[in-house]
């Protein structure tokens, strides 16, 4: 399972990476913004992306929209501080499969990842 972490904060990437490693995922690639992520998806071919919303250069929502133009299936989880309902709906409309609000606990992130992968696997 290949997972792409997209977040401008190295600390947040480390936290997410630590949770993913505990879950047994070791093939992890990192990107510091949406544009960086788009440049990496071709070569890395992720099976799951964890995307922050607020990032410089290209934000998470723009990344999701761009990504979904070519890939409708790869699960995307938005991991953000944007907790308003309207924002959540906006993200889902853009193509995210699940939503995690910061601050999150490792257990919550782990739960959402497992849940999303299970849903997408049934869907496909």
């Amino acid at each position: 399972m290949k997972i792409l972490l997209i977040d401008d904060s190295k600390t947040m990437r480390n936290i997410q990476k630590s949770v993913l490693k505990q879950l047994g995922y070791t093939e992890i690639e990192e990107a510091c913004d949406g544009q960086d992520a788009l440049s990496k998806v071709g070569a890395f071919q992720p099976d799951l992306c964890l995307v922050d919303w607020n990032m410089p250069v290209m934000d998470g929502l723009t990344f999701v929209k761009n990504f979904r133009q070519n890939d409708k299936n790869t699960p995307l989880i938005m991991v953000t501080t944007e907790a308003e309902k309207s924002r959540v709906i906006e993200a889902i409309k853009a193509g995210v499969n699940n939503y995690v609000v910061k601050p999150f606990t490792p257990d919550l992130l782990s739960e959402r990842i497992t849940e999303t992968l299970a849903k997408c696997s049934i869907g496909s």
Partner: protein
Amino acid sequence: MLDRVLKPHEIPLSHGTCDLDHLLSISTDSSSIRCTLHVAPVESIKGLDVTALEAFLIGRDILARFIDRAALQRLIDDITETPKQEHAMTVAQGEPAKNGTSAIYTLTDSIQEQLDAIKKRKEAIKSESTDAPLKSPDPDDADVVNFYDQMAFVVVKKGDPIAYKTESSMGTDGCDVFGATIAAIDGKSNDDVLDQTIRVDGNGLCTAAISGVLSASPLKISISENLEIKGDVDFQTGRITFPGSVTVNGGVKDHFSICADHDITIHALVECAKIESLRDITLSRGMAGKDTGTIHCVGDLSARYLESTIGVIIGNAQIQSEITNSSINVRGKLNAEQAVIRGGKVLVSKEAVVNSIGSPQGVETTIAIGVLEELEVELRSIDELSAKLETQIKSMTTKKETYSASIAKPTASQIEEMMGMDFELQEYQSRLTKLNDACKIHRELLSKNTTQRLVVNKAIYAKSILFLPGFRVEFKQDLVGESIIELGSVGQPSITFRGQTVPLSEHARVLPDETYLRVIEDAPAQKTAA
């Protein structure tokens, strides 16, 4: 050529021709391979030609195919030239037998080079003056042979190539001039040159089946797991590193060493040398290490005495007569019931039984019982790391609490910053948990592998110092008589002296001391009892 071979009597003799039967005779060598035709002086050679001679030889049962007609012609020519002389010529030659070749073992270049080097070494040592013993070589001089490090033995490891075998060949029978078979001898397989310590593969490559010392002669090539040195370990032998057992009938001289994977037995004195074994060491006499000689043994040590020696014995140690001015660390039990410990420092992890400690002259002698230094060093370092981590956790917690309290409604970046702090705190906690687990394991090991019990059969003399985990005991006056000093898992050290068990402080000065950690079983965290 004759259509039919004529017998001598069938050869027609006209008037004036010679009588061949009287004139000619043959002889052969011992194996009848060569036939020589002898011709007596003749008046006339009329009727004497190659055909007649050939017929004569055939009549004497010489095989026609072995007759050399050219030789017969030369003989006729000689007779013609000097008929009144006797003549003799080899005129027939059989086929000698070709014997087979025996199997040959050719040592590999590497083994041969080592043997050559050892030979040169022996010659070089012989040529040295006995008045001027060999000195340690100058390490910068490439031409100087280091006689310390060059071993006088070829040591091989299991699987090393030793030699190549050239197989034996069969012989080819020969035939003498009369047609009799000369039996050839087949080459010997020479299998007995090797024993089971050397294997030969299908290509003739001989490899070591075991590790050990190689002995190679034309008649025998074998490997022994036991290296026996008849004399001393000195310049004749070099420093020894051996994968099996080593027995030295002599001693070990200054600056030489023996490192063996199996047992080491030395019958005479070990001087300032290095002795290391992965199993047991037996010193029939003892070791006078001159303060730098070392002994390291993974198994047990048995020695008559140790003097000015540094030693680590992972197993038990049995000393018969004395340990003098030495630094000895025994991880097992020390059995020195007849031995005196005088001067120096002796550490014992388990029970020690000794005859006496110190001397009536007041030689300062230190003994530590129930201590395991290496484990304690690790335990202390774990303690230090734990303390540092605890400080970091405390500081990070305070920082996080202050930060949270100062923010009413956190921004996205503040939320992330707080998550980062949480993450860091969890990392510290996880490391601390691991350290605590390691600490627990070390404590258990320390507890299981140490026994705080000292039995002294004769006396503990003044100026002796005894370390027990958590305590330093100073003996200010001689304590003559049998005594048993013990330290329970809790409480003070006690002594049983002249049948009475009392606190050790009644006979010696007992001070709390952190030199050696005291592990209190079931204590929540590792702390020194002192």
